[in-house]
């Protein structure tokens, strides 16, 4: 297989991805935060489009899983990091060469950039040769690189580079400054005077001395006096400097496009893998999900909201994970329970885990079987303003309708507390209607609501409840557990804390 891309198994898919924009559900699921954290510090690679383009094909996902698995090898990751650093250096040097005014300086910065590029390519090839690669993508890349470094272009680039570097390193010259005159000449073996002075005073030397050396500015550019000296040095070594000039002119655009593309695309993996390691180090598991666009029997254990977990880890707080599993014909997770009990977080994590899986990435959780959706829809209650309150229910219905209209049996829908601004009766009626439509489309759905009755709507619904600590209902455990919805459990727990349960009351009264 000819090497195309480390991210995509076909040029078509690659071309499609480049035009992507941020999906509308990104903010609801806090995926904008997740992707922001993943790509932070890698802005130069323009990775966002890759994170905005979910895959809908299990084999395309497998293509990426293979690369992620190969990258579990530390030596490989280090090799790629070193390659990336060198490429970054190459770009910085070329940029610097561009900015400089004096040609003799541009040429040398250019030469440095080429040198680093050569090292980057050779180093990467070596890394890949040394690695036990299993992924289709990296094996194809290895094959490509091996032939590239033996190509006449590359061989010429590197052999002439080496000659020039060696010759330039050997240039030594003298500058005699007397008044306003500077005389530039070849060095002819005069003694190092500082050493002689140092030797004379050596007998007084004791311990560590203060450093009196001046910190000179180290601008990359030159002033006209330095440039004047350099010009005269070039006159002292005419052949060498004309060879440098020739090299500069004949090797512009020396970076191969395939190499440059790989440098960018591999950062998708590096960024995500680095992000994942933060969680794994804190004991939060990630796994390679089984994905399918057939089976809707989705499940996950120890899943968590990555955006929230990142925040909690930064604060040093505990992260609560949850599980879910659906067996045919179950499709709809109805989540009820106390406020601030982790319902929304659960809904987000369900969306996140499916989206991340569709990116071909490892997902938060111990194990996961997930559905490859064609479209993903979310409806999260927005922070409302008083002015819009009256129109809110209508707006919500418009939105939900739009979702139902566009959704296909291959879609996922996440509805977070829809109709919460209306009466319980309305919410129940509307909710039933929506669930009816959802059921008919056989959609995978999460429905967060305060309406207990919806939890047992039909054979497709599964009831999940946010739990509180049994001895103290003020403490939420953030655990979402599969059990019948029961609004009374919460009240009973509060009663127990005050010693007012039936049992407690009986015993108190008995005394």
């Amino acid at each position: 297989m000819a090497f195309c891309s480390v991210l995509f198994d076909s040029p078509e898919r690659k071309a499609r991805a480049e035009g992507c924009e941020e999906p509308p559900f990104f903010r609801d699921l806090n995926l904008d935060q997740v992707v922001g954290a993943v790509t932070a510090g890698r802005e130069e690679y323009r990775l966002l489009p890759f994170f905005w383009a979910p895959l809908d094909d299990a084999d395309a996902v497998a293509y990426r899983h293979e690369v992620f698995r190969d990258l579990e090898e530390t030596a490989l990751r280090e090799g790629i990091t070193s390659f990336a650093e060198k490429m970054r250096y190459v770009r910085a040097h070329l940029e610097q060469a561009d900015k400089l005014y004096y040609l003799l300086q541009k040429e040398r910065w250019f030469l440095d950039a080429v040198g680093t590029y050569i090292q980057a390519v050779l180093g990467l090839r070596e890394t890949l040769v040394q690695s036990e690669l299993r992924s289709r993508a990296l094996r194809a890349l290895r094959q490509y690189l091996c032939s590239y470094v033996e190509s006449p272009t590359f061989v010429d680039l590197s052999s002439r580079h080496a000659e020039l570097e060696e010759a330039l390193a050997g240039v030594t010259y003298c500058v005699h400054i007397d008044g306003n005159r500077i005389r530039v000449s070849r060095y002819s073996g005069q003694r190092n005077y500082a050493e002689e002075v140092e030797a004379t005073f050596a007998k007084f030397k004791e311990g560590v001395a203060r450093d009196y050396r001046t910190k000179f500015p180290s601008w990359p550019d030159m002033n006209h006096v330095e440039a004047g000296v350099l010009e005269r040095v070039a006159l002292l070594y005419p052949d060498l400097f004309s060879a440098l000039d020739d090299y500069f002119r004949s090797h512009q655009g020396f970076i191969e496009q395939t190499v440059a593309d790989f440098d960018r695309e591999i950062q998708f993996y590096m960024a995500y893998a680095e992000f994942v390691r933060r969680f794994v180090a804190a004991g939060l598991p990630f796994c390679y999900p089984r994905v399918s666009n057939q089976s809707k029997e989705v499940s996950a254990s120890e899943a968590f909201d990555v955006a929230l977990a990142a925040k909690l880890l930064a604060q040093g707080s505990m992260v609560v994970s949850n599980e879910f599993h659906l067996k045919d014909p179950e499709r709809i997770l109805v989540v009820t329970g106390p406020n601030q009990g982790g319902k929304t977080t659960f809904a987000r994590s369900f969306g996140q885990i499916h989206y991340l899986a569709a990116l071909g990435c490892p997902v938060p959780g111990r194990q996961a079987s997930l559905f490859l959706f064609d479209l993903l829809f979310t409806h999260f209650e927005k922070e409302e303003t008083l002015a819009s309150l009256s129109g809110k229910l209508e707006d919500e219905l418009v939105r939900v309708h739009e979702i139902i209209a566009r959704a296909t049996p291959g879609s996922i829908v996440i509805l977070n507390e829809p109709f919460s601004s209306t009466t319980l009766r309305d919410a129940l009626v509307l909710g039933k209607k929506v669930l009816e439509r959802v059921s008919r489309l056989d959609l995978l759905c999460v429905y967060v609501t305060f309406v207990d009755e919806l939890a047992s709507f039909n054979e497709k619904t599964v009831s999940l409840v946010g739990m509180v600590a049994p001895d103290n209902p003020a403490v939420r455990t953030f655990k979402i557990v599969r059990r019948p919805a029961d609004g009374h459990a919460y009240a009973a727990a509060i009663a127990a804390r005050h010693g007012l349960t039936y049992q407690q009351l009986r015993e108190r009264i008995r005394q």
Partner: protein
Amino acid sequence: MKAFLMFSDRDFDLGQGLPPNEHDLTADLELEKIFAAMALGDSFLLDLARRAVLSSLGDPMEIRYRQEILKDCMDHPSVVRELYAIAVEAIERERKVYHSFFHYPEAVLHRAIEVLRIFVVQLKRLRRIADEHGQLFSSAGFSRLFEMLRRELDDDYFRRVESHLDRLELRQGVLIRARLGRGNKAVDHTLLEPPAVRRGWRQWLPFGDRSAYTLVVADRDEGGMRALSEMKGRGIDVVANVLAQSADHILSFFSMLRAELGFYIGCLNLWEQLARKGEPICFPVPLAADGPILSSRGLYDVSLSLTVDERVVGNDLDADGKLLVMITGANQGGKSTFLRSVGQAQLMMQCGMFVAAESFRANVCEAIFTHFKREEDPTMTSGKLDEELSRMSWIADRVTSGSMVLFNESFSATNEREGSEIASSIVRALVESGIKVLFVTHLFELANRFHAEEVETALFLRVERQPDGRRTFRLLVGGPLPTSHGEDVYHRVFHEDAEVEPAVTPS
């Protein structure tokens, strides 16, 4: 170059931490008065005195090294004071040389040259003293110093240094070697030997010679002039650094010389004051810490002597082989004074000084601790016994076999039985750990407990009391007497006894 007047093989470390109980030692043994007498108002000498006296030496060899030097100083005080003056002058003149606020190589270089010219003058003066008086000194320390000055600083060396200083004025311009670094900018600037004489005008001719090219910066090109001066700066940076560091090194030689001589100047100052009063001093005999040795004739309290006009009463002590010396007797009978004089002598011996006695010998102690009754608890955070016990616990964390602990009326903040019980177990534990204990107490119960045991390693001293009740401030060998003499004091204060008050009233 090293002065090595405090140690035969190393510098006197002015940054060395003092023992953690420096404040207790200073207060309890009234060392401040001794330091002041050594310093005579000079804050530098005061600091030195404190450091030297409180930083005990552990090896009799090291102590004798200083004793020999101090004897030389006492034989030739004026020469030693002149050496000290040369060091002080070198340091003070260096301080006056202008420090440029801007830190650039030319300024660094020129200041270093100026400072080194001053130092050359002072070093020559040291050499002359070594030439003229060196033979009169017999201590190993001074012999080595003078010999080093004569060997290292011969006339030829001074000529070489001065020639460098002249050449480094760089009147013929700066000759620099460089290489091409990143972006072809000059790197690795190295100053080459300055051209001895200016070459003829021909060297600047632009044509003919293909081995050199010339660049002239126009007079009005300010940016060019700045660039030129920076280029020059890069060339002389290393040599400016070398020279400035050399100046610093010589400065630290003078500083060390001043500090080390300063200790002996302090000793001379104290000696002269005691000698004026006719108080005796002696060079103590320091012994290895093999076993408890402590004997003295005419041992007196230096601080007390420095505060009164008369000579003070000295005591004899024969405590060789004794780990416990328990001192009992009437209040205000000179017990505390005696305890202080032992502590002072031990510290002064261990820093190489003379001792305020006709003779003194003792084993070297690893560390010296004092546990004196405090008049009050300034923080009021704990009860008195509590405070005393926590101080004792602090000492217990640090005390080692071979140390010495001086107790003064400790653990008397409670009733006698309890105090004695606490104190005796502490004393027993210390003594059995090989720690030398001197305990001043009016707790009869405590003293008697040890006295009754008739232990070989314990010595009991008692304040001498005349039949008429007067104190002589002398201590005699003897066990405790069941009654304290507090009522004596009471009587003296409340009754108009015709007795003559002693001139010296120790606390």
